[in-house]
């Protein structure tokens, strides 16, 4: 079955540390890839998306993600996290045709001062 895996359930970092959250999917065809963020008490918001072209995608708030087709991965990165990045992050993949997005289980990021 098609699935999306996020490797870390909960990540705790100090401010200014670098961040990388893993996301892998299981599908051999064309994909559209997304990262969403949910700040405490707020809506799910789109952080960035990959549709085609340059596999390195830049999103809002200094986040970026790299699509590595050979590894079926779309990891999220940020060079220096801030306390305000504390949130839950969801990877989502559209795997061909008129199918809904498949979401990972999410990674909770806690940034401490």
């Amino acid at each position: 079955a098609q699935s999306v895996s996020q490797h870390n359930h909960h990540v705790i970092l100090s401010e200014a540390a670098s961040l990388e959250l893993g996301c892998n999917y299981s599908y051999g065809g064309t994909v559209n890839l997304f990262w969403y963020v949910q700040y405490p008490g707020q809506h799910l918001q789109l952080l960035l998306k990959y549709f085609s072209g340059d596999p390195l995608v830049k999103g809002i708030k200094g986040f970026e993600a790299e699509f590595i087709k050979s590894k079926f991965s779309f990891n999220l990165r940020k060079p220096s996290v801030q306390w305000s990045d504390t949130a839950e992050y969801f990877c989502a993949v559209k795997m061909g045709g008129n199918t809904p997005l498949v979401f990972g289980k999410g990674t909770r990021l806690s940034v401490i001062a």
Partner: protein
Amino acid sequence: SQTIHQWPATLVQPVGSPLSLECTVEGTSNPNLYWYRQAAGRGLQLLFYSVGIGQISSEVPQNLSASRPQDRQFILSSKKLLLSDSGFYLCAQMGYYNEQFFGPGTRLTVL
């Protein structure tokens, strides 16, 4: 841009009572609409999606049903709620690049 309305924002219902959650969207006509349930540590579980009026696809067999009586209206229902139906319910609309835009959600507690 897409605007998604959901109500109520919070709901507390007894076991065995009926349920009706409403989602309405603004923007493009004939949008693809989705109902998700979000549970802590379990991500977003897709419950239903609809590509048009009267067209509903169910992803997970359970105690819930969905209907789409109008182009921009998507309703989640139950005839008899179970304790396990408690959760955070999100309505979403698909955008031009297949991304999804989410509503503010409804927090349902079944007692």
